């Protein structure tokens, strides 16, 4: 039954777009979301939460180590509530990191994984499951579900990162002259029939940012926040945004600040 509804939602999402159909799609997804509230475990994103948890405790990489000593900001191995306080400045790395950048750093330091190699193809193709790093990010985020975004962002480097993120959010470039703000600096607007969140405003940002990482019905996999940024830049006709780059962390830090006080509901469910 769960999967039937999912299939119906997916089929509707793929059908030629029209107002009636889109309203139907929205209704089907809304119904599915309501079911998730009754039975939260029916979100396929939880499969990746479980996978991420298993990966966290499984020895991997050249050093055959687990991630259990990874410090996400609240001390080695402490996962509960860590996502709610990210991005943050890490003294050991001397930089601000979001959850995925930090996990990659731990994979490199603890497990000996080659980060430069990993970032060459860090995101799944359509229909493919989220990669290991993304699954762990989904697990870590889910361990803050129900908490409010409370990244401190008070350290000088954190402030600098948020300011950079805001500049990048408004920075127009590429052959279409797009900025993030082109689509996300107003309320109630849409591309075709897809509604656009007003991310330059805290009220709307705090409603949607906490839903990432999210299971996407249209691509049938979990998409992480780093992947979401990469996808926006693809649409903006920009090159491939590198996972863990300062630009990616800055945008995510800006969004986390915009979402401060908003509830974390990861993994979310998206069109």
């Amino acid at each position: 039954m769960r999967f039937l509804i999912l299939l119906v939602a997916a089929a509707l999402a793929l059908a030629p777009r029209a107002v009636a159909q889109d309203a139907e799609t929205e209704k089907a997804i809304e119904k599915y979301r309501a079911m998730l509230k009754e039975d939260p475990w029916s979100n396929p994103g939880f499969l990746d939460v479980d996978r991420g948890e298993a990966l966290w405790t499984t020895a991997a990489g050249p050093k055959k180590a687990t991630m259990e000593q990874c410090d996400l900001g609240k001390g080695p191995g402490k996962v509960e509530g860590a996502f709610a306080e990210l991005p943050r400045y890490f003294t050991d790395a001397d930089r601000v990191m979001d959850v995925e950048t930090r996990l990659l750093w731990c994979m490199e330091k603890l497990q000996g994984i080659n980060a430069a190699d990993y970032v060459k193809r860090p995101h799944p193709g359509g229909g493919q499951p989220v990669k290991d790093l993304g699954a762990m990010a989904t697990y870590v985020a889910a361990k803050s579900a129900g908490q409010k975004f409370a990244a401190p962002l008070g350290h000088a480097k954190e402030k600098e990162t948020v300011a950079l993120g805001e500049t990048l959010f408004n920075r127009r470039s590429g052959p279409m002259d797009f900025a993030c703000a082109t689509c996300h600096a107003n309320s109630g607007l849409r591309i075709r029939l897809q509604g656009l969140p007003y991310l330059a405003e805290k009220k709307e940002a705090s409603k949607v940012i906490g839903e990432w990482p999210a299971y996407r019905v249209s691509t049938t996999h979990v998409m992480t926040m780093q992947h979401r940024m990469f996808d926006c830049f693809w649409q903006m006709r920009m090159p491939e945004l590198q996972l863990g780059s300062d630009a990616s962390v800055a945008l995510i830090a800006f969004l986390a600040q915009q979402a401060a006080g908003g509830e974390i509901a990861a993994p979310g469910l998206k069109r």
Partner: protein
Amino acid sequence: MRILSTLFVLALSVVPAAAQQPGSAAADAAIKAGFPTAPADWAPRLTGDDTMQQCSAARNSPSKEVAEAIRKRELASIVYPPDNSFVGDWKKGEALAQSGYGLRFTDYPPRQANGGNCYACHQLTKKEVSYGTLGPSLSEYGKLREFKPEAVKATYEKIYNSHAAFPCSTMPRFGTNKVLTIEQIKDAVALLMSPESPVNTGQ
């Protein structure tokens, strides 16, 4: 030649404009480092030109002086059809208004002509109900302008370079940025300005 001299002026003015903008050097460095796989000929995509730097710095609300400088500069970049006929084939215009293909890193080598993706942001024909609202409705665009020849020319200019009419417009500069060809822009003009176009017949 006009383009060449515009480019030359742009190249000269990039440095001072960037220097005026607080934090833009950090942003430039972060963008350069954030897209390490960018091909060499994509470098202009990363930096944005003088107009984009001014619009970004002003959050798209430039001062009167800056707006006027942008308007003049962008108007000068417009290349007109050699025979000054601005109206192409509205059916082709409708096809390119529907298509969002082109210029993404997954669109190379090109498999078809670039689209204008007009429906992503604008309402046009009544028949197409899946339209965006980032831009104003263009329903009955030509009819409302009584199909006047000067309105036809202005439409061509707006599609070729929206900043020549509205400095720091959020609409792409389809001609100047070589998203669409002159022929394609004429087709888009036809979709908006032909009396036979469904945009104006209400179909």
